[in-house]
Structures are given as C-alpha cells and as structure tokens.
C-alpha cells in the first residue's frame, strides 16, 4: 500500500511539474527589468563572460529527441551554442549585451502542434528565435511571429522564407538548389530527361518545383515522383526509376531513403545520375551496401561549403567545437547564426533594443559577414526581391571528414538567374 501511495505521489508531482504548476528554474522571471523588452535584461546572462553586461535571450525550438531530423538538429543546436559563446567571449553585442541561447531550448519532435505549444511557453521570455527548425513547424508559428515582430532564424531552406520579413534565412532555398543541379547536369552530363523523386511538402516539393522549372527552360522531359518517408517505402520510387530510366534523378528525401533508392536502382540496372539536396547525405552511408552506387552515381547539391572548407568561419567553427564527429549539421547551424548576430549588432547600435528594433535592424541589412562561409550578399534582407541563388555541388569522397568534397564551387545556373520568385515554389509544382 505504501509503495502504491508513493507511486501516486510521484505521479502527481510529475504531472504538476509537467503542467508547470511548480518548477525550479523560475521561467516567469527574466531578470527584474520590467521596462525592458521581452527577452532583454540588464542583469547578466546565466553563464555570463562579463557580469557587467545585460543579456539578450534567444529561443531555440528544434528536433532534439525523437523526430526525423534529430540527427541533424542536435549538431545544429550545439553549433549555435558554440557560436554565441564565441560572440560573448569576443565582447558580446555592441559591448552592452551578451546572448543566451541555452535557457530557452525546446524540443518540437518535428510536430507543428508541439512546436506551437513550446513556442507559446517561451515567447514571452525571448527577444527572438535563434533557431526554429523545420518548414511545416515554423509555418505553425509564422502568424504569431509576424503579429509580434519576432525575428527568427530558420533551420530549413524552403523558398517560402524569401517572402517573410521576420524570417532571416541563410543560403539558397531548395528550389534554387534543384534549378542549379539540373543546369549543372545539363552542362556536365548532357542529360535529356529528369525525374524528381521527392518527399511531400515544402522540402521535397520545393526542390521538385525547381527541377521542373529548370527542365522546362532547358527543354528536358520532366517526371515527378512523390515518395513517402521511410527506407522500406521506396519500392515505387525504385520501380519508376528503373522502368523509366531518366538521365538524371533529383532526390529530395532523407539519407536512408536516398541510399535505398540509389542502391536498389543501381542493383536493378540503372546507370543514370543522381543529385540529392543537402539533407540526402549522411557520411554513415559510406558504410552502407549502397556505398559503391553512391560513389558511382551520386552527387550532393548544397547551400554551403562542407565542414572542412578553408574559410575563417569554418576554421572558427572547428576551433569552437573540438572533439566532435564532423557533421554538416554543425556547419549549417553555425552559418545560420550570422544574420541574427548582424541584426542584433545593428539593433543595439541603433539604440532601439526591442522586437520592433530588431525587425527594423533586419530590414536594414544589405549584407552579412559570414566570415567566408557564404558570400556576403546571401544576407541581403533589405531587398525582399533579392533571392540568393548560389549553390555548390559536392561529390562523395571517403577521405573527407563528412564524406563529401566540393566539385563545383558557388555558382548560379541560367535557370535560377532568370527565374522570378513571386511565391513559394512548392505551390507551383
């Protein structure tokens, strides 16, 4: 009986704690500066380098445990913690504030409903979001972000972000990536037919639309195959590839799906080319049975240079993350943080330290110093029509830390150069 009572008490305590009736971290207070903007305190950050500086709190909503992108999201989040620790060590923002991205970190499980729920939990305590991972998840809070002028750095590359003031995207979107990939394949492999094999939604469909635009411009035959997520679900996609034998397949799936498709299509006699968007690659695929096919047939398109690139930004990232297993989740996470830093710098310099001030600062940014990781014009948020259109092509290289090396540096293909962006690409597939 006693043990049952104990279990009951523990269960009630856990329930109340989960409901936020009592908690030890006192999330209701951000430092007693009532007159200041949400997420800004005159008191130092919890792990301040300089206790004389105030603190700007930024939230992180990422796929940290059980969602499909956890493998990428954890390095992204770790890289951003390291990025802001470096900023704080170097004097913070305008010599007045340090930035905390460790107190309000929430797991969205890649579920839009959970994303909105945890966003509501933290939104009164943060100035902006250092990371909001996923396209459908971020779409779930977009209305509220806009209504409250909350600036957010996305961890996704959908073309929808090109049309949102509050979203400070970094690198080309999937649509541009696929356009450039098709143009590259036309130049390099003289392809005549292209098939987009993609997941549903604004990841896969965005790239497929880009491939469709490029195919139309280049006079290629285009077919579109939507495939579900999951390596065991790829039977149909494999059948379509081996039956139709397109010269080029633009892949927009997860890495395990990509390996299954490429490995089995090659085993089924397919000899064309695959170009997969950034998230189709994972260095562990080199140990999979698909490795020979990947080496022979696959290239990866990417919005940025891989982990071992020789730029000051990459070097700083590697120095800030000693001992980690190289993963381009770190690279993306680190690069995504630069625009927020530039916007915070501009906001503090402008004197209006508030959400509105931050959004105004974003609208003044014509370039961002990515320390060479990306061209500075990738950070043009002042001109809404200025869509960044450069991507790279990587090839599989067992000797490289993340299994890929760049074969074609930042370039803009003729399709992307000529394309007018007047709405999200995925809506036009």
């Amino acid at each position: 009986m006693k043990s049952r009572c104990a279990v009951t008490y523990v269960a009630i305590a856990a329930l109340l704690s989960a409901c936020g009736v009592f908690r030890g971290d006192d999330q209701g207070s951000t430092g007693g500066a009532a007159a200041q903007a949400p997420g800004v305190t005159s008191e130092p950050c919890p792990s301040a380098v300089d206790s004389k500086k105030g603190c700007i709190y930024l939230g992180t909503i990422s796929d940290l445990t059980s969602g499909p992108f956890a493998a990428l999201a954890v390095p992204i989040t770790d890289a951003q913690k390291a990025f802001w620790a470096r900023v704080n060590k170097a004097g913070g923002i305008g010599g007045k504030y340090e930035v905390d991205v460790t107190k309000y970190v929430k797991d969205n499980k890649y579920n839009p409903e959970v994303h909105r729920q945890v966003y509501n939990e933290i939104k009164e305590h943060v100035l902006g979001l250092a990371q909001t991972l996923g396209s459908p998840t971020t779409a779930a809070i977009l209305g509220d972000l806009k209504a409250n002028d909350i600036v957010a750095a996305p961890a996704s590359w959908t073309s929808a972000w090109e049309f949102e003031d509050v979203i400070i995207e970094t690198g080309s979107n999937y649509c541009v990536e696929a356009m450039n990939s098709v143009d590259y394949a036309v130049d390099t492999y003289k392809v005549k037919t292209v098939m987009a094999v993609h997941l549903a939604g604004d990841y896969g469909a965005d790239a497929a639309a880009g491939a469709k635009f490029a195919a139309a411009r280049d006079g290629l035959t285009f077919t579109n195959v939507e495939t579900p997520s999951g390596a065991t679900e790829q039977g149909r996609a494999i059948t379509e590839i081996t039956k139709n034998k397109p010269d080029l397949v633009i892949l927009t799936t997860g890495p395990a799906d990509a390996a299954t498709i490429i490995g089995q299509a090659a085993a089924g006699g397919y000899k064309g080319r695959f170009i997969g968007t950034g998230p189709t690659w994972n260095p562990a695929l080199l140990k999979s049975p698909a490795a020979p096919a990947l080496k022979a047939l696959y290239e990866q398109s990417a919005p940025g240079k891989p982990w071992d690139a020789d730029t000051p930004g990459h070097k700083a990232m590697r120095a800030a993350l000693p001992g980690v297993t190289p993963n381009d989740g770190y690279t993306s996470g680190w690069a995504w943080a630069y625009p927020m830093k530039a916007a915070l710098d501009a906001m503090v310099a402008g004197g209006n330290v508030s959400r509105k001030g931050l959004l105004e600062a974003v609208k003044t940014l014509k370039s961002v110093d990515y320390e060479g990781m990306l061209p500075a014009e990738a950070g043009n948020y002042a001109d809404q029509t200025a869509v960044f259109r450069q991507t790279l092509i990587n090839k599989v290289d067992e000797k490289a830390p993340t299994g890929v090396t760049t074969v074609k540096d930042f370039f803009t293909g003729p399709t992307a150069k000529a394309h007018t962006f007047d709405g999200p690409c995925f809506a036009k597939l």
Partner: protein
Amino acid sequence: MKGLLETLIRGLGNGSVYALLALGFVIIYKATRVISFAQPALMLAGGVAVSHLTGVTGFYPAVLLSALLIAGVALAIERVAIRPMVGRPVFVVAIITLGIDVVVRVVVNAFIGRDVRQVGDPWGFMQVSIGPLVVQTRWLAMMAATAVLVGLLFAFFRHTRYGLAMRAAAFDQETALAQGVSVGAVFALSWGLAGFLAAIAGMFVGTGQGIEQMTWVVALKALPAIIVGGLDSLGGAVAGGLVVGVVESLFQSYQGEYAPWLGQNFAVVSPYVVMLVVLLVRPYGLFGTREVERV
C-alpha cells in the same frame, strides 16, 4: 509476368518480416488479452543491438545474441511494468505498453546516434537469378528465416509442456491456473517470445537500408496484419503479414500504371484499406475466433 513474379517475391519477403512482428503481437494478445504497443521499440532495439554486436562477434552470432538480449529485455519489462497490472482493465495495460514503447525508443535512440546504423548483413543489395527472375537475396533470406521460425514456434506450441501451458492459459486462464499452470510464467514467456521475434524482424528491416531513429514506424504495419489475420490466430498473423507485404508490393509496382487516380502513394495506405475490407466482411479477421456475445 516476370515483373509480377518479382513483385510478389519482394512482397513475400517484406511480408515475412511483418509476419514475425504480427506473431509477437498475437502471442502477447493470446496470453494476456492485451495488444502490446511496445513491439516497435523492441524491433528497433533488436536491429540496433545487431548493428553494435556484428562488428564484435560477426553477423550470425550477433543476430542470435541480440534476439536473446531483446527477449531478456522483454521479460524484464513484463516483470517490472506489466505483471503488477494483472487484473486491471486491459485498456490500462495497453496504454502502459505505449509508454514503455516511448521509453525504450528514447533509450535505443541514444545507441543509434546521429547516423544510419548498418546491421552488417551479408546480403546487401545482392541479387540472385532464379530462372528468368532476378530477385534480391535478402528477400529470400527473410522468407527462409520466417519459415524456419514459424515452424519452430508451431512445434513449440504443439509439442512442448510450456507450449501446451501457453495454449491452455490462452484458452481459459482460471481453469489453467486451477490445473497448475503458472499463468505468470506464461505471461513472461509470451513477452520473451515476442521480444525474440521482434529482434529478428528488426535485423531484417535493417538489411540493405540500415537502422535510423524513425525505423520503428515499420512495425506499425503489423497492426493491419493482425487485424486481417485475426487477433488471436498465430496462423492468421503469418497470413496477415504476407497479405500486407504482397498487397503493398503490388500497389508499389502497378498502381501508378493501372490506377493513377488513386494518387501517388496509395501503397502506403493499401494495407489499411485491406484491413477495412476484411473488417467489413469478417470483423474477427480471416482466421480469428468469432466472438459470441450473450445478451
């Protein structure tokens, strides 16, 4: 015709794996009247255990050790979380198994890490010719392994004391108890067997494509399989698994050509459509026991 036969072999291969998973569900259901939603986690754990052990012991010993390990984990779960709930409504116990599934998956995810893990199987995407047909070796391995395991399982139920005890307890727990059958041991054994089978299924799911954190979703295909076959029929579980595999494979290969109006990925929902049709015609499944309700 060649394409159709190859499609059928692929379906039977994948269906064999669904059959192993479905057997686990049915064995636990027959013993305890509870549908255990912890099977996906046990399947994932089995595949991950093989991926870790294969480098140390080699592939085949790793499979055996992992299956025994997961059977042990399942036994422990039954003893710690399920046994104290005996006599409680089965709905409550089923919800507890949902919780167990989440907990085990979170632990197993830590052993998966960020990358896709390979189980180190000898088949990969290797193909073999059978007359004019070219099929993947792993599908044949799946079918052969399932045939052997199902044979052993049925022999166990028919010819051993414990098998008889399990059948007796499944038929009538109180009477079995009165005849000296340890119903507790039957519960434990059912969980152990389900864990063993789930681990083997997990290994097969990982062949060729590897194991990642979302791989557990595959185990949900056993749900339409057990409904199609009948919740309390072991033979039905095997038949249901094979039906699900074959239907899915046929839709993957031919739906785009013959029924494009169904949309691009009807294969994903096809097992559930079959399940609905079976439920309409035979609500207790193809081989399940017809329930008699006296008013």
